[in-house]
């Protein structure tokens, strides 16, 4: 034998999945939502998304190569996912400088300070988003009215989101009148589902996000546990509130389809790195997020609570991982 055989430890076969494929799978599942936002917001959607994605990738490359002094692996797709998800939390008329700053914080602080992919305790896109929200509250809460490709990018016509209208008017006007008042312009269920309303890029089109969820479930990128437990908890708690006091609470279906809940439940909360590893843990995590979201929405100062809820539960993930272990095969034998 004049050729050397390779010797390595078993297993000698490997499955088809890779980090790259999983990340790009998430990118593909976001395609329907991206198309929906372009349909409703026009060029500005494309600009915001591409600025966010490109700056996330550039920052990750620069920080990995020059500060961490490691081989950059931007092609694994995780920076692209962060960029997309960050873009989807922003209003389409956000100045480009602010978007870039958000990307820097998301990647630099939210991911790289902890050591790069796999080491961050908090969802990087949400870290960037919350930073921008707290630092630029005005720019982050003026939403352009969708008008297809005629939507103004810089300023002019801006409108409020359904949740912010509700938040302002809770306990002042009965909810029924809020919903039907033409001046307030609350979208009906149809609009919520198809997306013809004000809000950030990713908030608007429920159907597009649900298509994305189905795609990810089929491709086994995520499991049903986290989205279902979040949405289920929100439905249950808003349902309880609504049944108890329909005058000052919107119904559960409305709550499920407004705001960043779907985006958060399907994409943000299911981020691998920051969510628990065992099935039981995932359900506890989802319930926690749902509960905190409802509390902030209904009783807190902010109209939308998903971003904070997810970040708070991210902090609990290591604890959940330590105590909620998967069920073992075979019981323990004493003096084994």
């Amino acid at each position, binding site marked *: 034998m004049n050729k*050397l*055989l*390779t*010797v*390595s*430890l078993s297993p000698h076969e490997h499955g088809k999945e890779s980090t790259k494929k999983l990340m790009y799978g998430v990118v593909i599942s976001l395609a329907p939502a991206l198309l929906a936002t372009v349909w409703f917001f026009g060029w500005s959607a494309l600009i915001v998304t591409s600025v966010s994605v490109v700056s996330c990738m550039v920052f990750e490359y620069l920080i990995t190569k020059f500060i961490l002094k490691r081989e950059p692996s931007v092609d694994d797709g995780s920076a692209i996912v962060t960029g997309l998800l960050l873009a989807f939390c922003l209003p389409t008329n956000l100045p480009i400088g602010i978007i870039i700053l958000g990307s820097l914080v998301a990647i630099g602080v939210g991911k790289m300070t902890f050591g790069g992919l796999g080491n961050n305790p908090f969802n990087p896109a949400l870290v960037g988003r919350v930073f921008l929200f707290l630092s630029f509250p005005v720019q982050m809460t003026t939403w352009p009215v969708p008008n297809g490709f005629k939507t103004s990018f810089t300023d002019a016509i801006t409108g409020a989101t359904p949740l912010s209208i509700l938040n302002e008017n809770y306990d002042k006007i009965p909810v029924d009148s809020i919903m039907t008042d033409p001046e307030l312009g609350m979208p009906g269920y149809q609009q919520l589902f198809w997306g013809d309303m004000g809000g950030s890029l990713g908030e608007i089109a429920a159907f597009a996000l649900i298509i994305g969820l189905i795609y990810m479930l089929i491709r086994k990128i995520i499991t049903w546990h986290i989205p279902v437990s979040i949405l289920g908890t929100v439905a249950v708690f808003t349902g309880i509130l609504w049944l108890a006091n329909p005058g000052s609470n919107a119904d559960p279906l409305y709550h499920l389809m407004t705001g960043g809940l779907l985006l958060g439940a399907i994409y943000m909360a299911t981020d691998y790195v920051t969510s628990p590893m065992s099935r039981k843990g995932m359900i506890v995590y989802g319930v926690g997020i749902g509960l905190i979201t409802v509390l902030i929405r209904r009783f807190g100062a902010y109209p939308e609570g998903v971003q904070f809820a997810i970040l708070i539960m991210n902090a609990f993930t290591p604890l959940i991982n330590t105590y909620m272990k998967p069920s073992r095969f075979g019981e323990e034998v004493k003096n084994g």
Partner: protein
Amino acid sequence: MSSVVLITIISLTLLGLVAALILYFVAQKFKVYEDPRIDEVEEALPAANCGGCGFAGCRNFAEALVRSETFEGLNCPVGGSETMVKVAEILGREAPEIEPRVAVVRCNGTPDNRKRTSFYDGVMNCTIAHNLYGGETDCPYGCLGLGECVEACDFDAMYMDKKTGLPVIIDDNCVACGACVKACPRDIIELRKKARKDRKIYVSCVNKDKGGPAKKACDVACIGCGKCEQVCNFDAITIENNLAFIDSDKCKFCRKCEPVCPTGAILELNFPPRKTEQKKEPEKAEA
């Protein structure tokens, strides 16, 4: 100054004083008595916390030194004689006689000497490769070249020579703490007594196979022929399991063994060239 600022300064100062008093009394009441000599001894130690003494850090070693009556089994390889003498002074005891040691890699299986017969693909960790199989060559005792020893060294005294695939020890930095010895899954590294001018003479092989298979696997293997044992006048060489061993405590560096080794397994380093005919030294990267 406005009254607000004045009140603030006074109240905070008072608060600080009260806190300081409380802390002082508590510190006094709950103080753990420690032999003050432990602190002094700890000062004298090199503070490397390498574990070479066998204890968990310099403080732990200092406690052991103060507690024990003699220096039996207590030695700081990093600080060496200098440190032990200082410690002896503090504790009022006789300074122990220690001979400095240095680590030596007992394998010379370079790719020229030891043919590669397979290719290892996997984690670059010696223990993992050792548990898998004999290695990329036909010598199942020899160095695997994956560098677990180099990683274990805290004193920058080792590096992996890329051409030979063997670890190299930088004598000046080596403090004989023993971390590399423990790390090597094949016990190839040995702590030998340090000689003047960094001279070394040792059997650079740990192959325990009989002569035939040993030599087949590696040109410079020790075949256990015993010629070195015969020629040594100081009883420093023993042969066990087809392998020769030169005891560094007994060796007088007379150099009689090196030329009689038929395979060149015995290496002599940092000696002046012999006055007899040209001797071709086996290939070895110098530290």
